[in-house]
């Protein structure tokens, strides 16, 4: 379908949303085109109701300010790095190639 150049003025929030979706470095026209195509095809649908996460998680009782969080992550990486690096792969068995069997056809 032929394209036509238009001038767009978008809300800053919508521009930020597009950037957040990874369109910031790419082709803005293609992004807007994609969105309109999806809307026309009814693929956008009704967004689900927002579910707040406030008050739904717990911090460690002995570290409510997460002051030892970095240490915990360093420990995870240290444990990973301390494992011996050994790659073991089953060796393919070596056998001399067997001669192909000739199919014998019975005659008569």
């Amino acid at each position, binding site marked *: 379908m032929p394209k036509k150049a238009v001038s767009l003025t978008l809300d800053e*929030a*919508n521009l930020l949303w597009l950037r957040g979706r990874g369109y910031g470095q790419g082709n803005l026209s293609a992004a807007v085109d994609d969105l309109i195509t999806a809307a026309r095809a009814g693929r956008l649908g009704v967004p689900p109701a927002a579910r*707040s*996460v406030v008050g739904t998680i*717990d*911090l*460690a009782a002995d570290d409510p300010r*997460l002051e030892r*969080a970095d240490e915990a992550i360093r420990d995870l990486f240290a444990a990973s790095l301390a494992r011996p690096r050994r790659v073991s792969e089953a060796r393919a068995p070596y056998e001399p190639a067997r001669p192909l069997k000739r199919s014998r056809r019975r005659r008569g």
Partner: protein
Amino acid sequence: MADLPAAVADTHALLFHASASRALGRRAAAHFDACEHQQALVYVPMAVIWEVGLLARASRINLRRPTQAFFEDLFSNPAYHPFDLASGQVYLADDLRFTRDPFDALVVAAARTLALPLLTHDADIGASGAVPVIW
């Protein structure tokens, strides 16, 4: 809807918000509160998502559901956006010399890429001046 305030979340800021902790700074709390009313935006870098998963695995936090389910709940509110990691952010993080913490570097790189302030209480990040901070 124009000119919605927007910011990038550091890991501890997001976790303080989700746990309704009083440790969250006043300005950061106000920003998150505005997000809950869909009057502000927060971008969540991939490094934050990974760090949250690692902290759950290390039992430093209890998400009460799998990491993915927690973030699906968070992103069900259109005020919160995951911000994908791209190579440009990795190069930017590599250039940051004020920290040796790879997560901090990637989070700062995300904020710089979006040209947005960072919701953080990290003293090193604040002192570096690498990004404006909100707390």
